[in-house]
């Protein structure tokens, strides 16, 4: 069976947009995520990290879950009202927002 190109693209755009939001928000709002301490080799759930602990796994996990859920929802609900160019622009704008935020953090730190 041939997949519907528009349905697949809309699901992909929803997934990318939700991934961008799900990646940015937990860190900026300091939401509790999975944190790994490589020195103690232990996982925990925390809002902020201390020492060598890292929240990258947790942030990525939240982003992947948000992206997959949004893509599945768009696939099931088949939204078609928004023009595809607008949906693509919105998804890429959210990605650009993430990049702008992380670039601003880099420029403030160096």
């Amino acid at each position, binding site marked *: 069976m041939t997949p519907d190109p528009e349905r697949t693209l809309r699901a992909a755009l929803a997934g990318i947009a939700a991934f*961008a939001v799900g990646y940015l928000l937990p860190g900026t709002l300091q939401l509790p995520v999975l944190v790994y301490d490589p020195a103690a080799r232990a996982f925990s759930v925390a809002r902020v990290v201390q020492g060598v602990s890292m929240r990258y796994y947790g942030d990525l996990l939240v982003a992947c879950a948000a992206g997959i859920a949004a893509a599945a929802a768009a696939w099931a609900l088949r939204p078609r009202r928004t*023009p595809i160019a607008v949906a693509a622009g919105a998804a890429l704008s959210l990605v650009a927002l993430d990049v702008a935020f992380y670039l601003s953090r880099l420029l403030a730190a160096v």
Partner: protein
Amino acid sequence: MNRALLVAHAVLGFTAVMAATHHAAHAVVAALGRPQARALRRFGWIAPASVVAQAIAGLLLYPSYRLHVRAAFLERTAPAAVQWFDLKEHLSALALALVIGAALAGRAAAEGDAPRQQRWSIAALSSTGAAFLWAAAVIGLYVTSRGAG
């Protein structure tokens, strides 16, 4: 073990950069009106597979970097490189979503006759993903040179 994983991460990283770049180039050519069904199908699995593989290698290496490179000396000797490495990780994560999304949409568009607006949207996603991977690769080489130096 970590050295082998680092080499695998580098090789997979460049495979991902090249595959995603090929996908982006074919997506742009398809958007311009020249059908690229075969190439979009082929790179529609090579690009996401290589990006996922290099991401897994990177995630496995990350604790070791955090402990034996970043905390051990990089924060002291080259704090700017630490910030650049963080940006590389963020760009890689966003590229993961973009490349997978563009690959799935590109494969579906290759099967049917997708309208121009859809083809350009796929080209935009794919090109952005490839650009992020290029940036991540260049930053990775810079940080590695600071870590080795």
